[in-house]
């Protein structure tokens, strides 16, 4: 669906996107993660054929973003991070305009608008003026506009930024629904939990460079090479740390606020042997748990050391 090869964009001395290479297959939900100013928006705008790359190529649905921008635009639904809405315009008129702008035939538009409004739960607001909608509703309307021409790929730049928790959950549910409808989604965010449940693939970008790309579990495995354990002992923490470090199935022990973070590399079923050994050596273990592989900690580990 998306094939990006060596994509680069510079603004003066700043390289906003530096030699990006990745691909997204049809049906994927690809999460583009990075702090503000990492180059997410620049990349998405290049993919939407809105920005000319300095180097490299990108094809979407087989269309080259430079040579065939029309084909790219027809197959992409683009939702910018910041957007305004037209004043003095009703919800249905707003959608009608964008449908016409994507050359949806006029006979098909009324039914299409009805369907899209139903999907985004805005049917009751059909005749409301756009600027009278709440922020969350505007965001849903923008999403409705993004899918009005039934694109195969959705490029969503921070679709839930600035929303209250309820609106954020609504957007996430909507995106999950779109995923289940078979749409390919590329979504960017600096808020990690937002992407956790949604994406099957992620790309981590920082200072224009793609640090890592792949399936969430693969990246985790690759990064840690094992399971992360969180062990809390009542006292003698340093001793316990040394004890663990001496074991061959444990790698990389760290002591943080009375808790020991260790990576277990042995047989997953024999994990309890570590606990047994600790207890037998007289350490008073109060907690022994496997740490959850959430995106946030993955991201923190990935960017640690690479960027100051």
């Amino acid at each position: 669906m998306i094939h990006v090869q060596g994509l680069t964009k510079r603004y003066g001395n700043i390289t906003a996107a530096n030699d990006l290479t990745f691909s997204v297959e049809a049906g994927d939900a690809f999460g583009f993660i990075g702090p503000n100013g990492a180059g997410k928006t620049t990349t998405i705008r290049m993919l939407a054929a809105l920005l000319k790359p300095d180097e490299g190529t990108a094809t979407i649905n087989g269309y080259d973003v430079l040579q065939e921008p029309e084909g790219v635009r027809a197959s992409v639904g683009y939702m910018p991070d910041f957007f305004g809405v037209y004043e003095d315009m009703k919800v249905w008129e707003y959608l009608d305009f964008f449908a016409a702008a994507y050359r949806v035939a006029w006979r098909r538009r009324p039914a299409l608008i009805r369907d899209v409004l139903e999907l985004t739960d805005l049917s009751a607001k059909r005749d409301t003026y756009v600027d009278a909608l709440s922020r969350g509703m505007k965001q849903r309307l923008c999403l409705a506009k993004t899918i009005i021409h039934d694109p195969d790929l959705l490029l969503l730049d921070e679709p839930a930024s600035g929303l209250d928790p309820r609106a954020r959950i609504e957007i996430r549910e909507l995106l999950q629904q779109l995923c289940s409808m078979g749409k390919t989604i590329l979504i960017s965010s600096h808020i990690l939990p937002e992407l956790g449940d949604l994406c099957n693939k992620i790309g981590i970008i920082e200072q224009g460079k793609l640090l890592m790309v792949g399936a969430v579990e693969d990246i985790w495995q690759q990064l840690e090479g094992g399971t992360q354990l969180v062990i809390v002992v009542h006292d003698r923490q340093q001793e316990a740390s040394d004890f663990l470090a001496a074991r061959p199935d444990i790698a990389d022990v760290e002591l943080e606020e009375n808790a020991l973070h260790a990576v277990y590399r042995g047989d997953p079923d024999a994990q309890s042997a570590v606990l047994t050994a600790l207890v037998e050596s007289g350490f008073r273990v109060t907690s022994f748990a496997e740490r959850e592989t959430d995106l946030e900690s993955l991201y923190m580990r990935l960017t640690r050391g690479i960027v100051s």
Partner: protein
Amino acid sequence: MGRMKGHSIVKAGLIEDTLNRRFHFNPCVAVHELRMRMRDGRPFSVLFFYALLAILSVLITLAVVTFSYSGFYDPMTSEVGLGRITFTALAYAQMILMLFVLPAYGAGAITMEHEKRTIEMLRATLLSPSDVVTGKSLVVLAFGALLLVTSVPVAAWSMMLGGISPTDVLLTYSYLFVIATWASAIGMFMSNLFTKSITAIVASYVVLGFWCAGIPAAVSIVGMTFSQSSSTSAAGFVSFAFLVLVVGIVSGWLLFLIHRRIWSAIFKRAGRNLATLVSALAAVLLVWLIFRGLMSPLLGIADLNRPESMLLLIPYGGLGLIIYPSGAEAMFQSSSAALTADQIQLCAWAFSAGIFLLMALLLWLRSIALYESRSRTRT
């Protein structure tokens, strides 16, 4: 009622299909713009004040002319009808109002998209630069036409006062519409050049002010400086040179753009420079032919080598020549050929309206090119 509504939707849809298929023009921007701009009370209050000022211009003129103690106007003896005097006031009032309203209206068209942060989504659609720029220009023009139509009853009133023919009214209104096109094209161009509405509006007024006052002043100063030194017709020559320069540049540029489109299609990518070269040569050749073929006979019958020829390039000057062809008579009448006042009126109308229309056309093409070049390079 519902049936009627359904019927009109089908009609509108069929028009949309035709425009899309036959003319490759997607009218949705125009429809969208009309919905937004015509919905609230603002355009209608502008219309109201426009009509009010139009009526006032006629009333005040009537009052001044008929009640002044100096008695400079006597309907029994005057050669100029009362209707012509009030109509002149009406025409000038309209021109001034339009030159104020329309550039501002046009200058906001694209910059508003920047300010409301809607431009990105607009660019991401399948709308071509021409769909956007033309659609928005048409709505500004439609508003200009609406303003003009509002004043038609007032013009009818002037006609009843006598001294003005339907042809005069028709020529004047069509000329005013051309000026409206030109003024909105300046606004539209600035709207594409800048990203802030206020900058675009100020720039449009500066250009208009320069064109209507700055250039005539500069040409007269240059002319006077020269006449003091030697030749008496230096002012005439400078005006005429300026006339030729404007006509040459505008028509040459337009011809170049049209040619480049044709030749680029023929030479494709490989010969872009070649296409540019061929188009430039073709444009120069055509402009030369125009001057040889059209201007020479014109020079034969009309004496353009006069300071007043400058008036043809200034909106109010052209309007004056159309409403008072007797003034134009003195200007264009050369010794060799005799022209009637009607012929001269038509000549002044054709020349002045033609050059303003060409300028508007050029600005429109440049606006589309600007929109296009900015669509894919903005940060």
